[in-house]
């Protein structure tokens, strides 16, 4: 469960996000849409506790992001826009490092690594340096890192970025498989991906939420890209 209420972020005079509110519930993938520079990454960074908000509140799994940051960080898996990889490490030591950062018990780590490597299909590149991996594999290692501690909340910033069409389908299918008992927010600017994977849509433009609705309501009687264009134009 993620509740974002009246969230604002200003950098000096410039406002990146202004009065953003929305709710994401478990079992439902929320597609976070908007043009480049609309404030998607900023909002996600605030939800994960990387950036502080200027005003507003965010609650993740019942904990306040600002007041109980540690509790939130324990429960969130986060794939930033650029996968956070150490290029001089190979896959397994990197995942072990990520698991230890998440304060996992030593005994649980090997099993967790095996599980995410299998789920993200990383066996073939297990011994390769992360710096030598293709964009698609880098993205998958980034996702494996976010999943290692089996978090109840997943924040994925453009998870399909840089993947080829086959890989995009695979990735979305995979994320859908994670949804049943998790709260997932997935940002993208590619509408067809939303149709394929999300139940709920939040459209953000110029730092403000212009649409928050179920996908099925939004596409009733019109195509998603028309609804999207209308929403952006109206903002």
């Amino acid at each position, binding site marked *: 469960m993620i509740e974002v209420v009246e969230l604002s972020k200003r950098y000096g005079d410039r406002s990146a996000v202004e009065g953003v509110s929305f709710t994401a519930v478990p079992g439902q993938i929320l597609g976070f849409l908007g043009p480049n520079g609309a404030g998607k990454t900023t909002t996600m960074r605030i939800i994960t506790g990387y950036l*502080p908000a200027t005003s507003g509140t965010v609650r993740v799994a019942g904990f306040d992001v600002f007041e109980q940051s540690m509790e939130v960080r324990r429960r969130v898996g986060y794939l930033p826009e650029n996968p*956070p990889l150490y290029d001089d*490490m190979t896959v397994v030591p990197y995942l072990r*490092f990520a698991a230890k*950062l998440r*304060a996992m018990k030593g005994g649980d780590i090997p099993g967790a690594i095996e599980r995410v490597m299998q789920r993200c299909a990383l066996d073939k590149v297990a011994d390769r340096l992360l710096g030598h991996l293709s964009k698609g594999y880098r993205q998958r290692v980034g996702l494996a890192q976010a999943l290692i501690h089996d978090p109840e909340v997943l924040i994925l910033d453009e998870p399909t970025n840089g993947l080829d069409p086959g890989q995009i389908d695979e990735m979305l299918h995979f994320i859908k498989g994670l949804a049943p008992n998790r709260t997932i927010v997935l940002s993208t600017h590619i509408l067809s991906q939303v149709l394929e994977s999300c139940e709920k849509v939040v459209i953000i433009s110029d730092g403000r939420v212009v649409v928050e609705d179920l996908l099925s309501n939004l596409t009733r009687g019109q195509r998603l890209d028309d609804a999207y264009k209308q929403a952006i134009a109206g903002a």
Partner: protein
Amino acid sequence: MRTLFTIAGRELRSYFSSPVAWVLMAAFLALGGYFFYALLTAFNQMLMIYSMMRNPEMIERFNLNDMVMRPLLQNLTVLLIFIVPAVTMRMFPEEKRGGTYELLLTSPVRVSDIVLGKFLGGFLLVLAMVLLSGFFGLLLIAYGNPEIRLMLTGYLGLLLMATAFLALGTLISSFTDNVVIAYVGSLFTLLMLYTIGWMSETLQGPAAAVIRYVSITEHFQEILKGVIDTKDLIYFATVVVVSLFLTHRSVESVRWR
């Protein structure tokens, strides 16, 4: 605490998985070896000249500690001014550039674990360098008879200098996402700290005393003389603790801005 060691371990491994650690150690030891050789040759030559002049009083005053070890350790600290910033320059800039900073700061990890972990990783590398440079001391013990206690105190001084440099370098690296700025900023700070004592010679009164206290060289000189005074130890501890405290603040500031 466990996370601290996890971060220190990754830091240390990243030094050794690239040629960085090897190049830095090789440069430090090769130049150190050259200084050692030059000082020892000069010592032998002087000794020979005074022996030929049959001047026993002068020969009495010949001393390996004063004429080889002390200048060698002094030269090694100058080398560290250039080498330690190369150890610390990647600490934070690489994380920020590579996006891994987001991983660290969104994981349930305390900022103090990040700062101390990185510092500890760097410290182990610098400790290895100082220990390896102990080889020069061992050579003197094997072939001459220096005063061992004095030599050990000197190496302790070298390690204290290295640790203080490392803490300052860690702080400066936390300010930027650019390795060149981190290197030059640290180099500048360390050189200032090393040479600020020069000012005290032209100043008088309390200003001179303050500058003498701030100057890291003053404290190092005392230790080189074989005197381990609490006031010098407190000085080094203060530099390390204050630098790391400010680093903590600087990392945390991402969360206030």
